[in-house]
């Protein structure tokens, strides 16, 4: 009976996963608890980033190679604000998101007229540009010296220090982002994005203003990325331009491709599998072969392309599932 429920509604699966996640810090893992928690915090952070990026290539169908630029902008916004003004995390997060959205709009408004590959190249250039600015504008970012000494976030005057506190914080952020993304997906806006993804000409003839909705998608995606960056700066307490290199964009894109472009569950699943995989490989592989873990990443992706070319949860199946759920809800 219970199992039937699980099979019927993915929300039950999701809720039980959340339950597990909340329990995680209290499982008897012994000395490695903090290690596991840190890995899981990273995984959830990448989930947030992947959910944010998913809006552009997944929902709207535009290849975005410069996502990490917004991540970096968010991180530096957060770092600079907390160093110079010592603001609370709850002020910094929205400000970072706003800053991300601002840059997303500035980048998107003129370039979203480009199609396909040309747009991807522009976004790639943007992320490189962000790194260059972060590296060279010493007066603002201290350049290659990085930004050390970012104060930890505090809640009700209690500064967060232990790993489980950060883990809960990022879980909370994930919930917020998830709420935002699902609401967007099931709305007028989300449908307009899907329409653009499926067929631009038909979307236009249904009254969807392409530029406007593409820019909106880009800005929202950027603001989620910036929010992830803001958390990252507060968590790591040190940021450096090299942390926001192009490779990160590709990694996040891999998570989406692996999980299934355009499906929220798939995106999260991708991050949940691939990010801890890197840590597992770190433990499993011998010291000399340590850097070969990216090779295994590549192998996983190649196998993926062979067996499930549309990702773990293909967009099509996610949509079919959604429709079925809607039908059941209507019939009850």
């Amino acid at each position: 009976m219970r199992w039937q429920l699980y099979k019927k509604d993915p929300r039950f699966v999701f809720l039980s996963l959340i339950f597990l996640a909340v329990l995680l810090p209290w499982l008897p893992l012994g000395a490695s608890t903090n290690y596991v928690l840190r890995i899981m915090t990273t995984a959830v952070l990448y989930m947030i980033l992947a959910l944010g990026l998913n809006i552009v290539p997944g929902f709207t169908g535009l290849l975005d190679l410069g996502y990490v630029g917004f991540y970096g902008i968010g991180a530096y916004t957060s770092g600079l604000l907390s160093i110079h003004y010592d603001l609370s995390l709850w002020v910094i997060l929205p400000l970072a998101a706003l800053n991300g959205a601002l840059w997303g709009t500035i980048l998107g408004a003129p370039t979203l007229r480009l199609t396909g590959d040309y747009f991807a190249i522009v976004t790639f250039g943007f992320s490189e540009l962000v790194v260059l600015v972060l590296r060279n504008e010493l007066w603002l970012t201290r350049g290659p010296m990085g930004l050390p000494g970012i104060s930890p976030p505090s809640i009700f005057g209690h500064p967060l220090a232990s790993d489980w506190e950060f883990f809960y914080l990022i879980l909370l952020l994930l919930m917020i982002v998830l709420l935002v993304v699902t609401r967007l997906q099931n709305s007028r806006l989300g449908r307009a994005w899907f329409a653009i993804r499926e067929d631009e000409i038909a979307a236009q003839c249904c009254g969807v203003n392409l530029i406007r909705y593409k820019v909106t998608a880009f800005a929202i995606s950027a603001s989620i990325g910036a929010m992830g960056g803001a958390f990252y700066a507060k968590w790591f307490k040190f940021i450096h331009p090299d942390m926001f290199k192009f490779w990160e964009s590709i990694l996040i894109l891999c998570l989406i491709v692996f999980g299934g472009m355009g499906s929220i569950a798939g995106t999260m699943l991708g991050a949940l599998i691939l990010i801890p995989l890197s840590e597992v490989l770190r433990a499993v592989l011998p010291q000399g072969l340590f850097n070969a873990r990216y090779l295994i990443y590549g192998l996983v992706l190649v196998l993926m392309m062979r067996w499930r070319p549309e990702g773990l949860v293909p967009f099509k199946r996610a949509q079919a599932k959604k429709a079925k759920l809607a039908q059941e809800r209507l019939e009850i």
Partner: protein
Amino acid sequence: MNTILKIIKLSKSFGGLSALREITLEAKQGQIVGIIGPNGAGKTTLFNCLTSLYYSTGGQIEFQERPIVPEVAETKRRLIKSCAMLFFVLGLIWVPLFWSSIVPHTFFKVEVVLLGIFILSIRFFLVRGLMRFQIWAWGLIFVFLISDLWFSIWWLTHLLSLGPMIGTGIPLYYFTVPWGIIAGPFSIYLISQLVLRKVRQLYGFRLGPDAICRLGVARTFQNIRLFFNLSVLDNVKIGFHVQMRSGVLGILLKTRSQRDEEGLTEKEAFKCLRFVGLDGRAFDLAGALAYGEQRRLEIARALASNPQLLLLDEPAAGMNAQESSELIRLILKIREKGITVLIIEHDMKVMMNLADNIYVLDYGVLIADGTADEIRTNPRVIEAYLGGGTAHAAT
């Protein structure tokens, strides 16, 4: 009955090939107007021009007595072009002069040169935008013109305080004064021309496809363009896009009005699906439908935007006799709702049953129009369809 659509001498050429030549067409409220013609006659091009997917190169279109593609005289086009070119050339002079007079010590810095090239290229692209009647170009050119005007005034008032031009020793005002005298009045002239409403009347902005849809023109496509990976219901809901209002903030906060709107849309979408007889399949993916059903879904999606004018591009293509007779009934039902239908069709049986008025295109030229019977017996139509030799053989 009042005229809902009026196409006057519409032309469209792709480079040297003219796909449409001075087409004149009229549709009255509640009519079904057919457009026929051999392959490559320009029927779909006409639809694309009507929905702004293509920008027509001449002529005008009026929908409900409102020009959606306004007439732009060739002389005016040329005037805009020359004005825009002049503006660009002035920019060529403006940028180096600006740097050498305002901040002389930075003149040879790489960043400054790059910035100058950047500004110049923006000005150049403005010229292209202007020629395509794009709104953003008008907005940007306004900013540029005001800056030009300001600098010309500044230069004229600071005549003697300007030093020599860098590296040459020639006094700068030899260049700046004539430029100020030309650019000042020129900017004033263009700015006065750029008051938005006036521009719309004079030069005509083109409405984009989405704006056309908002006005009440919906269409289907020759090769089905559904959102195949979405459910049937979602496809129709996207059709309701223009009738919905909710924005990002409303969606994120899930305000009451947004929820109400969503519920109402769902109800209306079901009504739309029932109208075309697809309500039983609302929760299937659109790609899983049969061919005839996909055609009907496309019509439902078009109807969802509450159009006054519906453009159907070969709706009966690839249908069997029973399906096409169902389609005829559907189109008649649409007409009963008071929607004017413009229909391209090859199936003459469908056309003869439906159309009040038929227009025949051949090689982009309108060769005949009239009722079905008139068209059937028109020798030019027979010639176009069967070829010249056969027509002679028949007579």
